[in-house]
């Protein structure tokens, strides 16, 4: 599960006209990047090959049947209803903490991002085990909206902070009141952030397995898992996977075509001054009540529920817990290192040698990683069995799956780091008598390390919480915190699941802290 992709394809530095064509990447480096890109394209290739290999005559009856129609209705309803809800909660919350005098703004700013620290399947478990009647579409919408609205909140808050207050002041001087300014000036400028955040929410809704399985709500992803358990990676699972992947790609196209060519950057120079703050006055109390209810439902109930289950018996005494922790650390750490190693060359090429082709390579990896984890896992299972049977059910396949799922997280961090170490600094070091290699070690590497560390941490923490692909790919006997949690929950041993849930939440907190800090930093420029 990918938590956030708040800055997909962030704008790089403009290609320096004077240095155009001055530096070309070496042939060996290019080959390396191309190989990495091909690996990231495996899931896309898998989806395409389903159509080609299985053939339409076999696929059609598998796709056009009542069950698939029902799944399609469920999934579309989920996306169409939950995404706008997340946008309203995310943008509204962002505006409240950034532009009003709501008491405790700083605290709310952090609390509103806090639900990200609770994996959706843990949230689902907490609600189901507390209120057993929660189920179906209503339950799915409820839990998913509370879990995913921060994916809109973070980019929206960053965008609001980046707005030039002068625009709002100009609108006021032209005779518009606070509400009119919000709807006619602020909201239109948030379009990119809202669409981007909405896309990520929608992709998560398509990809989520655990929460919806617990809430007994059937989507494509839960149905693929059921098919996989009964008939393995057969035509039925593949056909559903192809439909799911198509839905994802349609969303990507929809989002990118909505972006248009408008620019929302601040035009002109000068330091922006502090924005005017909207005084809530008599709305303060209702606003506080609303925010309090939201946080109570999104964070309070799940955490309380987990703590309550921890109190039954002695769940911390399970012997499997320690083993799961070690396995998780090993798989997540290994996955993170592999992911960052794959991200570094791609980011380096696109920042240091900007060109249309190199940007396209980077873009392709983002698209490939937008596919749901279950499709990526199905693709790796199929490729492993067909091409390299020795790799099936090995640690390497799990690590590769993590790399494909979490590559955007690493790319965003690493490319920001490389952009902070412009080539001009290396040149300055060379003019001071340092060899090119020495200059890179003394200047570029230290500047790069913090973002590489952040990227590694983000991937590792995300991988530690990954459920869907790990369920499909983990070697026999390997159990992570997420899969350990899952088998306890599936057996309705809610108390046994509680320590896993608590550890999963604790592991997510640093990742959310890093994302929160990164989104703040991105808007400060």
């Amino acid at each position, binding site marked *: 599960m990918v938590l956030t992709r708040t800055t997909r394809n962030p704008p790089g530095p403009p290609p320096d006209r004077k240095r155009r064509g001055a530096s070309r990447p070496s042939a060996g480096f290019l080959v390396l990047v191309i190989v990495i890109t091909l690996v990231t394209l495996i899931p896309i290739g898998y989806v395409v090959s389903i159509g080609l290999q299985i053939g339409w005559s076999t696929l059609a009856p598998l796709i056009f049947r009542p069950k698939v129609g029902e799944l399609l209705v469920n999934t579309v309803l989920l996306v169409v209803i939950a995404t706008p809800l997340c946008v309203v909660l995310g943008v509204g919350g962002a505006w409240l903490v950034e532009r009003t005098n709501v008491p405790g703004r700083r605290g709310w700013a952090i609390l509103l991002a806090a639900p990200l620290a609770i994996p959706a399947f843990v949230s689902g478990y907490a609600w189901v085990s507390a209120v057993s009647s929660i189920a179906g579409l209503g339950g799915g919408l409820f839990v998913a909206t509370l879990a995913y609205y921060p994916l809109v909140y973070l980019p929206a808050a960053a965008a609001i902070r980046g707005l030039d207050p002068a625009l709002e002041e100009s609108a006021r001087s032209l005779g518009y009141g606070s509400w009119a300014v919000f709807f006619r000036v602020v909201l239109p400028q948030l379009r990119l952030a809202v669409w981007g955040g909405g896309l990520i929410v929608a992709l998560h809704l398509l990809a989520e397995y655990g929460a919806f399985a617990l809430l007994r709500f059937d989507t494509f992803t839960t149905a693929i898992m059921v098919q996989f358990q009964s008939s393995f990676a057969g035509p039925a699972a593949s056909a559903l996977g192809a439909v799911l992947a198509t839905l994802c790609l349609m969303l990507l196209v929809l989002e990118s075509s909505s972006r248009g060519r408008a620019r929302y950057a601040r035009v002109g120079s000068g330091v922006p001054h502090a924005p005017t703050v909207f005084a809530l006055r008599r709305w303060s109390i209702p606003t506080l009540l609303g925010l309090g209810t939201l946080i109570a439902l999104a964070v309070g109930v799940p955490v309380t529920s987990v703590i309550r289950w921890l109190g039954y018996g002695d769940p911390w005494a399970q012997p499997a817990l320690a083993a799961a922790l070690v396995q998780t650390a090993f798989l997540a750490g290994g996955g993170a290192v592999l992911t960052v190693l794959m991200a570094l060359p791609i980011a380096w090429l696109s920042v240091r040698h900007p060109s249309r082709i190199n940007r396209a390579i980077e873009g392709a990896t983002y698209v490939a990683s937008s596919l749901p984890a279950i499709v990526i896992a199905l693709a790796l299972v199929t490729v492993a069995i067909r091409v390299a049977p020795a790799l099936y059910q090995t640690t390497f396949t799990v690590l590769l799956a993590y790399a494909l799922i979490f590559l955007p997280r690493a790319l965003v961090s690493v490319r920001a780091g490389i952009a902070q170490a412009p080539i001009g600094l290396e*040149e300055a070091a*060379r003019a*001071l008598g340092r060899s090119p290699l020495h200059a890179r070690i003394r200047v570029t590497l230290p500047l790069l390390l913090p973002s590489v560390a952040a990227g590694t941490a983000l991937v590792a923490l995300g991988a530690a919480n990954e459920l869907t692909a790990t369920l499909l790919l983990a070697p026999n006997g390997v159990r992570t915190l997420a899969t350990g949690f899952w088998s306890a929950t599936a057996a309705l041993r809610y108390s046994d699941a509680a320590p896993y849930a608590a550890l999963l939440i604790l592991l997510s907190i640093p990742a959310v802290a890093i994302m929160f800090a990164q989104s703040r930093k991105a808007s400060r420029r």
Partner: protein
Amino acid sequence: MTSLLLDGVSKSLGGTEVLHGISLRVRSGTRAAIVGSSGSGKSTLLRLIAGFERADAGTIVLDGRPVCGPADFVPAHRRGIGYVAQDGALFPHLTVESNIGFGLRDRTSRRQRVLEACELVNLETRFLRRFPHELSGGQQQRVALARALAPAPGVILLDEPFSALDTGLRAHTRQSVIGALERAEVTTILVTHDQDEAMRFGHEIGVLENGRMIQYGPPDEVFGDPTTPLTAEFLGAAIFVPVQPRQGRAESAFGALDVRHDHSDGAGAVRALIRPEQLSVTADGNGSPARVKSVRSHGSHIEIDLTVGGKPDSIDVTLRLPRYRLPEFSPGCTVRVCVCGSVVLYDA
């Protein structure tokens, strides 16, 4: 002290020729300022001299040692050439002291050299423990210069080092940089798009236009005798008037003018370069009659628009005069204008 020689240096980037046959000689310990508009290739010229890029043709010789030519190429870090980038390019993760000491290999004398470099650029030592982002723009620029001067390079290259600074700060920083360079006795090349800055900075200035060095020499010489009308206009306000050459002088609406240089080919029409500062205006006195079209007041100065001579050969000029002369002029009145000094002739 080191001399620098460029001979026929050319460079293409991305299929476009950016520099064409550049030759220049900078004598040991002197300052050269290369001036050109944006896109003229001046930054590329510095990058070739620094060794960040390799010239396609021509040679670069440093103190008799070829550093770039058909057979040899010395990389940037072995040239001993200091370089100050436009934005300073200070290492953000290092303190000011570590930045200045970055190019010093000898640990025992490092602290001493850093302090000497600070003294050269008049940087207070209390800044040494700060990080670059804690300094103002002018201070950052001085740190960048100190860092480049610390290893005692024979040549130092400055890429528009003052363009990021405010106007007031710029003149002050320029003077202190010139002082530091003279104390360090280092051969210097500066590139800029500001002709005024170039003429104040360099012992010699070079005019770069579309990748070609149009003219190179002492500022007075280049300003007094621009080889092309384009250069003349680039270096300062210029008035071109049609003239008839006659017996070593030039007949014009301003009367017969003395000629100091003649760049016309003798056939066809000819025009003369007059700088506005050469025009002297009086209410009554010697000179050609001119009509005042309009008068504008700009605080300490006034600007008047004049039409000299009758149609069809009338010439419009705008002059800047001190404020106390305001009562002498009113729109519609007639004044006398004469040209002081000599002119340069070009083909029209």
